[in-house]
């Protein structure tokens, strides 16, 4: 299935610009996307996957044509 992957700021995903449509197997969860792109540091627990503009637990299966915005807030205020 095709998932549009978006992200912002200091997150870096090798070879995948924000807004790219990426092929994933059926049943892929947001957590699997984070694993595939090696977003596994200590900051992982702060990442919020926003799927089609809505809250989505990391272990929920995605659907074809979903849009996943990987948001990681940066400390400071």
């Amino acid at each position, binding site marked *: 299935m095709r998932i549009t992957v978006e992200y912002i700021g200091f997150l870096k995903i090798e070879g995948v610009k924000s807004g790219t449509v990426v092929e994933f197997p059926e049943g892929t969860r947001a957590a699997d996307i984070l694993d595939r792109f090696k977003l596994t540091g200590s900051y992982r627990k702060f990442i919020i996957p926003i799927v089609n503009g809505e809250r989505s637990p990391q272990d929920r299966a995605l659907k074809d044509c979903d849009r996943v915005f990987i948001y990681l*807030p940066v400390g400071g205020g």
Partner: protein
Amino acid sequence: MARGNRTRGANSGWLARNPPELGGVGGARVGIVGLGGLGSNVAMMLARAGVGALRIADFDRVELENLNRQHFFTAHIGLLKTDALAAQLRELNPDIELDLWPRRIEEPDLVAFSAGCDVVVEAVDDAATKSMLVDWFLGQRAAPWLVTASGLGGIEPSNAIRTVALADRIVACGDFSTPSEPDTGVCAPRVMLAASHQALAVLRILSNVDPALN
């Protein structure tokens, strides 16, 4: 939003130069979580624009090292930030309605804290609480707007600070990259740039204008 105009002299005097779109902000209530570099400055800017009611939360007291960016002065050192900020807000607008929460905001507090607010501003300094707030507001069907912030440290270029839509009724301001840590530091111009983005986003929301339209 219309609860009557709490701002004295809203149609004359100190608000005479306000953009006409802000005519209704006197009847708005905005919640601000965190009164550091972002929150203290956002509060003052919203008060200057005539927002009639603010609900302000912070557990902390003013310290000397806060003064390079936070809207406090030496006379405030040692005071609760809620009290020190309230005094300044009332000096600006004696009729402003203030609800002080001198404590840390946790997830169980959010229903009560956001009740009656048109917008909530996330102005805390740790990523964990930012994440908690964004996640909570994402999960609500009828919560107020959230204006969050991410990335305002160092002396990176001003133009890297921007406002983006994260989701329905949630916008984020900052450069999304530069943390405020000991090695990056944090200074007034950049912090206040991010705070200005947040404050303007609030005013645009209150005026029914897309806050993330660039």
